[in-house]
């Protein structure tokens, strides 16, 4: 691998930006990323846009309202929740293929224009066999959370503690949508959405845009890079019911993330993830979903998951999870997986301000899409991978 992120731009995330059109949000994120990269749009060879469900914005192909630069190659990716990371990976691919030296990747979420997201999310499910049910991102997470509790001994308090930790971290992130102190008790007292998930364990509806500039190693110069050491993506089968009886990788064994992480780690030369990855920007739209990522990322076994949660609060040697606050702090769906990579890049570059974790030599960012069907893993580091 021979590409690095040298610029990051984020508009910040809120329920809505009533004073900005969609194209203005895209331009803003792109402008900030180019400034950070100390580059001009003319130096960019290609633009890749990540926009997920059009229905959340209520605009079809909103990405095309904002061409950046003149006449550049331009493609849009839509892979649901992993969109932001798929777009970064595609930029990396064009650079590795030597079809571009510098790629600008932009993700826009415009769900501020939607009245309700769950009705839209219901339409991601198969219209023939499943859409008649109240299947939503909430209920599908709940189906998993109840299984995790039964199999591994997680409790409601574990979910609440994870949520509370995310909110606390978001307090140090000026870009986050939700910035308030929330105790585990507050979480448990919040309304139950679908057992066992409480409202404060779910992510907010956020909008905003995120952009990164990726360049070939020859263009890094004396800029401050976050090297892409590993990048991998795996797609699982659609039907959750098919995964329940899959030997070795049932519904809550996040096989697609495990395989993606394995490949990304191998590319990056990571063989002791718990020690080598100081910061983890983890895509979990619900606090309980984090639990599936721990064993997939090699931090602990599934059975030791509850213990790993408890240890996070007392053991400073463990990787710091979601120092940005994660999706709990802001979930601009199309961009969220890119935000994870952007935040991991800031950590590696020492530019994360108040939320900076000390001594981040390497960080990992994950993405999840569909009903844990699509998983991505991206390892960033201060050094180029060997």
């Amino acid at each position, binding site marked *: 691998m021979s590409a690095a992120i040298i610029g990051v731009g984020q508009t910040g995330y809120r329920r809505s930006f009533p004073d900005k059109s969609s194209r203005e949000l895209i331009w803003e994120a792109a402008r900030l990323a180019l400034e950070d990269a100390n580059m001009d749009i003319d130096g960019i060879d290609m633009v890749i846009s990540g926009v997920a469900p059009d229905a959340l914005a209520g605009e079809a192909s909103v990405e095309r309202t904002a061409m950046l630069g003149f*006449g550049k*190659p*331009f493609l849009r990716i839509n892979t649901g929740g992993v969109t932001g990371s798929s777009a970064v990976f595609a930029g990396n691919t064009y650079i590795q293929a030597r*079809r571009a030296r510098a790629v600008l990747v932009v993700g826009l979420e415009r769900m501020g224009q939607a009245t309700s997201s769950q009705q839209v999310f219901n*339409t991601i*499910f198969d219209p023939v066999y499943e859409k008649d049910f109240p299947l939503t991102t909430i209920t599908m997470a709940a189906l998993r959370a109840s299984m995790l509790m039964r199999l591994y001994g997680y409790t409601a308090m574990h979910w609440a503690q994870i949520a509370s930790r995310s909110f606390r971290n978001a307090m140090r992130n000026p870009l986050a949508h939700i910035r308030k102190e929330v105790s585990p008790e507050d979480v448990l007292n919040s309304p139950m959405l679908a057992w066992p998930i409480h409202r404060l364990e779910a992510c907010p509806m956020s909008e905003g845009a995120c952009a990164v500039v990726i360049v070939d190693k020859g263009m890094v110069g004396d800029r401050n890079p976050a090297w892409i050491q590993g990048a991998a993506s795996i797609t699982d089968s*659609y039907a959750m019911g098919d995964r329940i009886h899959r030997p070795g990788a049932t519904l809550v064994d996040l096989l697609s993330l495990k395989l993606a992480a394995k490949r990304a780690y191998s590319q990056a030369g990571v063989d002791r993830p718990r020690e080598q990855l100081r910061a983890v920007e983890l895509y979990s739209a619900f606090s309980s979903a984090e639990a599936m990522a721990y064993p997939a990322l090699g931090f602990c076994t599934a059975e030791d998951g509850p213990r790993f949660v408890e240890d996070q609060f007392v053991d400073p040697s463990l990787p710091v999870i979601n120092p940005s606050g994660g999706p709990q702090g802001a979930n601009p769906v199309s961009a969220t997986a890119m935000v994870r990579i952007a935040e991991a890049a800031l950590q590696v570059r020492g530019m994360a301000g108040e939320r900076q974790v000390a001594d981040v030599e390497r960080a990992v960012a994950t993405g999840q899409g569909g009903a844990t069907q699509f998983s991505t893993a991206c390892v960033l580091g201060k050094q180029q991978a060997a």
Partner: protein
Amino acid sequence: MFEDVYIEGAALEFSWADPKRSLTELIFDTVSNAVNDAGQEYDGIDSVVLAAHDLVDGRSLSSMVTAPAAGAYLRDEVRYSDDGAGAFSAAVARIEAGESERCIVAAWGRASEHDVEELSRALFDRIILAPLGLEELHVSAMNAQKWRINGGDDSHVNAAQQRRKAAAGANPRALQQGGFRSQPAYPFVEEHLPLWADAVAAVVISPRPSRVRVKGIGLSSEPYWLGDRGLAKAPALQRAAERALYEAQIGIGEVDLFEIDGMTLYDEAIALEAIGRAAPGQGMAMLAQDARCNPSGGSMAGYSVPAMGLARIVEATLQLRGVAGGVQQGAPRIALASGLSVTAAQTQTAVILEAV
């Protein structure tokens, strides 16, 4: 570039409202056909690159159900909400980058399941353009009229349409029954319009030498606002073709087969000028007289966004292999295929293929 990329297998199906098959079953069939055409079954397939649009498929995040139908299970799969030729370029990049050794590319659109006009209207800016009820077809119509105003030689339009119709009739892959045509807008008549169909196209690519090699790829884009674009000139296609020809190290004169994506007959004529195959104003004459320009019958053989760029690539591939059937144009050596995206051909991809 690192290494050459070859097309090992190709398949294309146009159908209409087949109640026996769901969308995923249509995709499964064409991807299976492309894999069978390539031989070696799924051995070594490690990557899947798709082109499809949620609003066409009628599902938010349609790739949840459709990606597995295209062979994505436990593989590195990505779905572009963009034209199939653009997705093809991304797949080629994966092979060149050393990320994949054998990749499926698939694109589809099932016009019989959605309202194509309703969707086309939704593409336009909600604040300023949507209240006008604008559709992509209207943009094509305005481009066509501008071409005529600019002095485009319209005297061959009937001959071009007749040739196109005969080609579609002779193309074994064309849709012969069913399909949908919109109401024409001036200056179009019905036969100039695309035949909306249920389309699935698929190829298998790899760095292993096969019968067709990818020789050059180019992409470009135009501004969003229609008034900022070069009307009747397809500048994004012009630049994309220039870039592809530059990479292939050839001139347009060395290309002997063209499969150019255009929504209507006039779009195809204008495109031939944009790529330099026809002189300004002479695109329609070229389309009438040169059977090697869209021998498939173009948009009359079947049309569905965003599959068409990949459908053009498949038709070009079959021509280069000499297996295009009733529309085979001798023994072409080099083909140029193109694909355009929403909104109203705002971005274009040009691909140059060579018979090995």
